[in-house]
């Protein structure tokens, strides 16, 4: 169940020129949150920018009630947020989304992420590993300059495969090619993905072809984040017969079964 908190920004780190990691004290949200959930942040107490910013949860430190999120400065709103100083508070609504990552039924977990889409996958990998799952993580980035969180993901994965499109760092190529190879070798029970749309489409296609359970985390332009405005619509796949034509990222999502949505 979502709530609104004014959470203290206890630690602020700059991972890249345009990427920030914020650690905030939000014990009540941390207690409720599940891997895959996100939060909505009001970046100003003024009326412009008007809407909250949906941002995925990177890490939940349950012991200390600390929630961590990582975001890229993309426009006016995230630019304002990035200026927030340690010790100040942040207006957060969360956790949001009934659709979260579920891995209980599987042993060999494949987690695949691309670019800034890797952030919400960390909490999933961490929890799955802690639950003694065999976690293989495949992360793809455009080039060396874009690689983030390599060490962090290495710690929560049994194996980490890192690729860059141009080969300027680690393996050259796309992360999905390595995932496909492992599927063919029978090493994958379930797939979890977040990243750019072309990557998600490719992962969805692969999972459906190979008949491997797959969950994907989606985003869509959003207003309320509360499930009332029905803005963040995602087209429902034809298979669930009685399903409505559209689901919503902030309610049924942000994590969907790959077979249930048209992306």
């Amino acid at each position, binding site marked *: *169940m*979502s*709530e*609104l908190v004014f959470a203290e920004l206890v630690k602020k780190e700059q991972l890249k020129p345009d990427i920030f990691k914020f650690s905030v004290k939000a014990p009540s949200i941390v207690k409720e949150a599940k891997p895959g959930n996100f939060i909505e942040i*009001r970046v100003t107490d003024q*009326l*412009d*920018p*008007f*809407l*909250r910013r949906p941002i995925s949860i990177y890490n939940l430190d349950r012991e200390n009630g600390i929630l961590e999120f990582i975001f890229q400065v993309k426009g006016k709103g995230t630019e304002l947020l990035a200026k927030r100083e340690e010790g100040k508070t942040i*207006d957060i*609504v969360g956790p949001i989304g009934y659709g979260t990552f579920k891995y209980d039924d599987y042993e060999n977990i494949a987690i695949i992420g691309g670019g800034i889409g890797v952030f919400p996958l960390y909490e999933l990998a961490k929890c799955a590993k802690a639950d003694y799952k065999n976690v293989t993580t495949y992360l793809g980035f455009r080039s060396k300059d874009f690689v983030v969180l390599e060490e962090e993901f290495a710690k929560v994965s049994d194996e980490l495969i890192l690729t860059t499109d141009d080969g300027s760092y680690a393996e050259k190529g796309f992360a999905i090619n390595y995932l496909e190879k492992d599927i063919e070798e029978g090493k994958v029970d379930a797939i979890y993905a977040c990243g750019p749309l072309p990557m998600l489409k490719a992962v969805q296609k692969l999972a459906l072809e190979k008949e491997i359970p797959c969950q994907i985390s989606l985003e*869509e*332009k*959003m*207003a*309320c*984040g*509360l*499930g*009332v*405005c*029905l*803005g*963040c*619509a*995602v*087209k429902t796949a034809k298979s669930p017969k009685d399903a*409505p*034509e*559209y689901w919503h990222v902030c309610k049924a999502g942000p994590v969907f079964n790959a077979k249930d949505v048209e992306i």
Partner: protein
Amino acid sequence: MNTEVNLAGIKMKNPVTVASGTFGYGREFSNFFDLSKLGGIITKGTALKPWSGNKPSRVYETASGMLNSIGLQNPGIEYFAQNDLPFLRKFDTAIIVNAIGKSIEEYVELCKVLNTLDIDGVELNLSCPNVKAGCMAFGNTYEGVKQVTSEVRKVLDKPLIVKLTPNVTDIASIAKAVEDAGADGVSLINTLLGMKIDIDKRRPVLANNTGGLSGPAIRPVAVRMVYQVAQAVNIPVLGMGGIVNGDDAIEFMLAGANAISIGAGNFINPYTSVDTVAGIENYMKKHQIEDINDIVGTVEMN
């Protein structure tokens, strides 16, 4: 201090309602506060049958506001009556259903059903700019508004409020049509038709190309229209358009609104509506106003 108002025959403990499409059917907000604190709840636009809504992207932020083209996605009146109405009835607040249709027949059939439900009133939506048939297609002429409203009036005994579009030349004449057709009240404004273009893709950002603009950006337009309508008709006015706090609400009431709705303000803070109730009370204390009804329409023009 009295904050109770009577809007078109609907008794409310305070003048604050929530606008259609910004509050769902209340459930999500009930996690944040007691819905009984509100004067009334206007439901999501609801039709005779379920509607799927428009293709995404459906929303986009603009300066101090937002564009939307949801396309009135709703589960239909049957689902509402079975699942949402019993829930809403647990709260001590007026329940007003926003009614939508694609033809006069659909509006009439829907209102026949609404007449049998345990609700306090109907807000007839003749103003959604995002669907091809019905709604704004009727709402932008005197004749269209009068015709639909008259037909609905014949089958609906409950309080009837008609919601107007601001996308017209003379809003006062449209409001007159509502009054002439025998409705009990008028609500305004719905969203202003707008468009945002992605300059790199050279395409509108919304899949439907155009959408309705709401939020504080439209507030001065709404205040002006509420004033004009209040001057033109003798039926009560429900005012809305970019209200985010008590001061904004008071502004609408001074212009002639008997009650107000919080719309997009619900999106930026789930407590906007209840905070507005408190804000109105603070204004009353500060200005020693005994009865909120005393300030309605008391703006003195220059």
